[in-house]
């Protein structure tokens, strides 16, 4: 009896490697230049500022979707959040620290709309070196980060729309879907 030895070269699969613990760092310069290139690439493929915002937000969402998996695998103690306030606090502290090495500056609830919350960051790293030209109006490239937040919230079962605005530095406006608010109210009633 003869044994046929497979000619296939054994590939080391990514699954064989242990997941890094997320302590690696690259320089801000390096990240800023990559981000700049990303913005330029998007800009070259769109015609208007809103299109550019959407494109940046989409790219951010792509990052957010992957990032949440990493975060949950790593933070074994993580338990599923079910309350709006808790998920927002999670974003403000845990997510922010993992992404940017610090908590977000502020979390506020809109006075006039119960669905709307604000996460405020005076000096977001993606905007650190960016001066938006006048012809780009209110463009805020941190809409990329807004995309990350949106993807994370959606991935955690809190569908929302997140946008970025020039206010107190940058303010991320989080607008939850009605169903999320209703669910939260039910929880409170119980």
């Amino acid at each position: 009896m003869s044994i046929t030895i497979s000619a296939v070269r054994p590939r080391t699969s990514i699954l064989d490697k242990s997941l890094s613990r997320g302590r690696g760092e690259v320089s801000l310069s390096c990240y800023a230049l990559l981000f700049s290139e990303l913005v330029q690439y998007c800009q070259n493929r769109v015609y208007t500022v809103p299109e550019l915002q959407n494109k940046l937000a989409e790219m951010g969402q792509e990052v957010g979707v992957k990032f949440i998996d990493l975060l949950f695998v790593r933070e074994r103690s993580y338990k599923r959040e079910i309350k709006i306030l808790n998920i927002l606090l999670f974003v403000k502290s845990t997510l922010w620290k993992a992404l940017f090495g610090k908590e977000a500056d502020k979390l506020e609830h809109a006075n006039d709309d119960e669905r709307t919350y604000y996460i405020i960051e005076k000096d977001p790293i993606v905007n650190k070196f960016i001066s938006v030209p006048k012809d780009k109006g209110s463009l805020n490239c941190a809409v990329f980060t807004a995309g990350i937040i949106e993807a994370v919230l959606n991935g955690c079962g809190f569908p929302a729309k997140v946008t970025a605005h020039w206010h107190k530095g940058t303010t991320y406006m989080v607008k939850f879907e009605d169903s999320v608010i209703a669910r939260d109210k039910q929880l409170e009633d119980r």
Partner: protein
Amino acid sequence: MSRQGTRLDTKNVNSELFTLTYGALVSQLMKDYTNVEDVNKQLERMGYNIGIRLIEDFLARTGSGRCYDFRDTADKIQMGFRIFLGVTPTITNWSSAGDEFSLQFESNPLTEFIELPDHCLNLKYANVLTGVLRGACEMVQMEVTSWFAQDQLKGDTVTELRVKFVKRLEDAIPAGED
């Protein structure tokens, strides 16, 4: 330079944010271009754009002088990887003429979490790096070319970036230099 190194301890960014941002860019390119070769080219071009800017950051912060020897260049490139990506590749496999060397990486922040799907095995995922080297060296009037000789993403045990000296761009050397 007297102030060498004083400004290297600038702020850092979580490498995962970097990896995933790069990943988002690559996957966007994969959507926008049908041909993998075009994606490779586009990545190289983006790297070039980054390189011609990154070099100024390197020079401004390190106060580094001009290279008069390719071994010197190799050391500076290695230093650049350490400063910007937080990894120190090994310089190895010098050609006998001293005009070619390899950078060996045990880890590469660009490719962490990456496994190439079977349909895009020809994708040079980290091709941006070859562009960065070309752009950065061109700005200091040196033409180099580089390519991945081995790639962990393709099943090799290490990632090896081969760098070759082509020529000095004498015409581009600014007046008052040499």
